[in-house]
Every structure is written in C-alpha cells, then in structure tokens.
C-alpha cells in the first residue's frame, strides 16, 4: 500500500478523490436539503445521451456532454415548474430516454469499441493531470457561486414560500442549482462513474446533516466524509483487488448504516437536539 503512494497514477487518483469530494460535498448538500435526489439521478442518466451524442458526432466528449446535460437539467427544471402534477413521471421518461439514447447512439457509431458502461463506475485510477486541472477549476467556480449566493440558497432550501416573499428569485436559483448539478455530474462521471456520483451526492450530506447546525457546516462535513469514504474505498479496492468505484460505494453505504444506528440511539436531550 505504501509503495502505491509513490506511484503517479495513485497520487492522481487520490487528488481526484479529494476534488470529487469537494464537488459532491457542496452540490450534494444542496441536492439533499432541496430533496432533488431524483432530479439529480435523472440529470446523471441524461448525461449518457450527451456522451453518446459526442461519440456519434465524432466530437470531444466533455464539451458536448456538458452542453447536452445542462440543457437536459434546465428542461427538467421547466417541467417541475410548469407541470408539477406530472413532473415525477416526465422526469422518469427523460431519465430513461437519456440513457437509452446514449447507448443507441454508440451502437450507431461505426468502429467505436469503447465500453459506455465504464461510465457506470468510472476509472478513478486512470485520471490524468488535465482531468485534475479541469476538476479543480470547476470546484473553484462552484464554490464561488455557492459562496456568493449562500443566503439565497439557504432561504430557498429551507422555506421556498418565505424566500419568494423576501425577494429571492426562487425559480432562477433552482435553475442555477440544476446547472451546478449538471456541471458536477459531467465532470465526475468520467472519473468516478455514475453510481459513485449518486452515492457521493446523497450519502455524505445525509450523514453530515444529522451532526451539524448550518448549511455551510453540512457542506464542509459532507466533503470530509466524502474524502474519508473515497480514500477508505480506494484502500479497500487495492487491498482486496476490487473495482474501486464499487468499493467506495460499499464503504459509503456502511457509513450511512452505522450513522443511522448511532443517531437512533442518541438521547433526546443530546447537545445536538
């Protein structure tokens, strides 16, 4: 294990885990407190359509997938706003359509042998320096956006009606959140895969919010939990020769279950109550 730390690919994997954790800690917390996990899942699966389209058109995957996924995410935001009674079903349609479109477009792409399914669990051990720079820049951008609009995000997430009365542009903030989700998804599924992105979007914030007193604290603690589970998962994958993404998810689920047991036993007069 110690010898691995001297290998460049493993160092890059650790850096990728750290950068992915920052994105998931920030955006995942907003997803969890806004109860948008289903929408985030739909955005993640719709991103497959973008990957397939890029491969079909013979264009670079990142920019095409980014534009496609942001457009899909905003379309979902419009559906939720305009057709609330049918939103659940229609988002489900987009979820399935995006993924199947991606797979079909790859099928139609002559001579392309890459396995689209590799996006399910990603390839964190094959991260390049270019990937790390893009991820770091995206983390900085997302952190700046959340910092600048922190109180608007807080008001919108806690009490939408009150936020609206306060003058917070709730619809635009929801759109902004959808764009953040799309950017985070596109940057992360190539590295850590769809399953891991969804696990890191939901599990660490869910665990963190039971131990914190503010949205900002939840984002920080969720990021630290993300770092902990990704590093532990990587170590487990190396030690037991397992798929890295799946090992990270397994550790995250174990942490979630352990937290559920411990917090159930927390006395009612706990300092956090």
């Amino acid at each position, binding site marked *: 294990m110690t010898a691995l730390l001297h290998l460049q690919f493993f160092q890059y994997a650790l850096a990728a885990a750290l950068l992915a954790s920052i994105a998931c800690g920030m955006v995942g917390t907003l997803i969890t407190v806004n109860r948008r996990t289903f929408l985030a899942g739909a955005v993640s699966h719709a991103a497959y359509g973008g990957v397939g389209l890029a491969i079909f058109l013979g264009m670079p995957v990142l920019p095409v997938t980014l534009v496609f996924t942001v457009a899909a995410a905003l379309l979902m935001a419009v559906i939720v706003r305009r057709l609330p009674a049918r939103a659940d079903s229609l988002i489900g349609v987009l979820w399935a359509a995006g993924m199947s479109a991606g797979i079909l477009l790859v099928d139609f792409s002559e001579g392309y042998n890459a396995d689209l399914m590799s996006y399910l669990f990603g390839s964190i051990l094959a991260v390049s320096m270019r990937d790390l720079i893009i991820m770091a820049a995206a983390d900085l951008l997302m952190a700046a956006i959340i910092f*600048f609009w922190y109180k608007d995000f807080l008001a919108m997430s806690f009490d939408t009606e*009150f936020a609206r*009365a306060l003058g917070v542009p709730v619809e635009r903030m929801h759109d902004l959140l959808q764009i953040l989700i799309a950017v985070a998804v596109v940057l992360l599924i190539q590295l850590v895969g769809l399953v891991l992105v969804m696990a890191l979007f939901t599990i660490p914030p869910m665990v963190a919010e039971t131990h914190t007193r503010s949205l900002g604290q939840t984002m920080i603690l969720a990021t630290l939990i993300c770092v902990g589970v990704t590093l532990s998962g990587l170590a487990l994958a190396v030690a037991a020769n397992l798929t890295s993404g799946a090992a990270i998810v397994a550790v995250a689920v174990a942490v979630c279950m352990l937290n559920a047991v411990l917090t159930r036993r927390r006395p009612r007069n706990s300092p956090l109550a």
Partner: protein
Amino acid sequence: MTSAAPTVALRHVTFAYGTEPVLEDIDFTVMAGDYVAVVGPNGGGKTTLIKLILGVLSPQKGTIQVCGESPRKRQTSIGYVPQHAAFQPHFPITVLETVLMGLPREGRRTPGYRAEDKDRAMTALKQVGMEREARKRFDALSGGQKQRTLVARALVAAPKLVLCDEPTANVDPHGKVCLFDLFASLVPRHTVIVVSHDLVATASSVTSVAVVNRRIIQRRRLDAAMLTLMYGEHGASCPISEYLQGLPQSHPHRP
C-alpha cells in the same frame, strides 16, 4: 402620504388562476395598529389575498397599496409567516439563523452575519419568548416553538405589517392560545393580519374580521351576512353563529 393613510388598501381587486376568479372585486382596508383576522372556507382565496398583499402575486384588475406604495416597493415593511411551512424535517439550521433569514437580503448574500444583525435576531426572539432556544436546532423544537420562531423571523426586520397565514396549523390547543396572545401583544406597534380557520380563537381578540370566499366582507363584528358568505345560505343559523356573534369584538389594546 398622510398619517391617516391605511397600512393595507385593496381597491376593486380581481385575481384568477387561469380563467376562474379566486377573488373578485375585493375592497380591503387595514389601518395602522389594527389586528385583523381573515377567515373563510378552504379554497375561498385567503392565501391568495395574503400573497397579493405580499406582492408575490399581481392582480388582473384593481390596485394594491401597502403603506401608500406598491407591495414590491414596501417588501421590507412586511413580515411574513407562511402557511404550513413544508420544512425538510432534518434541515441543519439553528433557531438564531432561522430568524436571521428574515433580514433584508440586499447586499448581504454571502455566509456570515454581523454582530448587530445577531443582536436584532436576539431581540426578536425575546419578543416571542424564545431567546433561550437560540442555539438549538430548529427541528428540535415543538410545533408551537417553531411557529414562535417563524414569528420572530417575521419581526426581525421591524416591519410595519405582519402577515400570518394559518400560523396555528399543527399547533396544540394551548400553543394556539399562546400564539393568539402573542399576536395581540404585537399591536399597536405592528399591524397584524392573521389568516385562520380558528374562528373562535381569532374572533375573541381581533379588531376586525374579514370573511373571504371569492368576495370579501370586512366588519368589526361577525354578522349574519359574513356567516352566510362563509358557510352558505344556512350559515347564519348554524350552531356556532350565535356564539360567534356574541363574542366581544373589541381589542384589549383598543378599548
């Protein structure tokens, strides 16, 4: 604006979601220091009325003024306690930060709060008797304590007008009495409009009652016409009406 100008003035206001009017030709006046109960059946337009006064909705016809100007221009003059606030059960936020959320947002959207803002929030919490709970998580409070916190959030910006939309929903009977006592204690410093289903509790302490059911009737005392608008043609003879009409309608602050 003269000192006699009403705090809230709706003139010939009509509002519809789609084509069916929810409110039609509404005239509604609330003077400074009044404590007004807005009652009516479900779907009668009570919450729509509150949203129009807030400036969240705009009427198709008529005019709305708050303190002599359009509601959008007087947003900081209005404190708002929303209906059945659908909070995430485990949202990570303290009582103090919940109250701080009520401060005007202009120019201060980034994290962190000034000491003077925290002082204002503590003052608002003292006003509702919740200062000892300031450091607690909001989700650890009882239903009545949560509503008191939301009233403190509405008061933190020292508004002229406080709008409460069904503030006693999900509150036990004792908590309801305490909340109505709290609203009564806010006047005449604040003008208070409370939407409620609880006719008995509101009718005993307010300065006037407005019954809303697509149209509006606003009087100092409940009368047969108001009960008919509320309950239909047999409203005036329903068992509760005699009791309601017999209740004193003078407010303790306005002998």
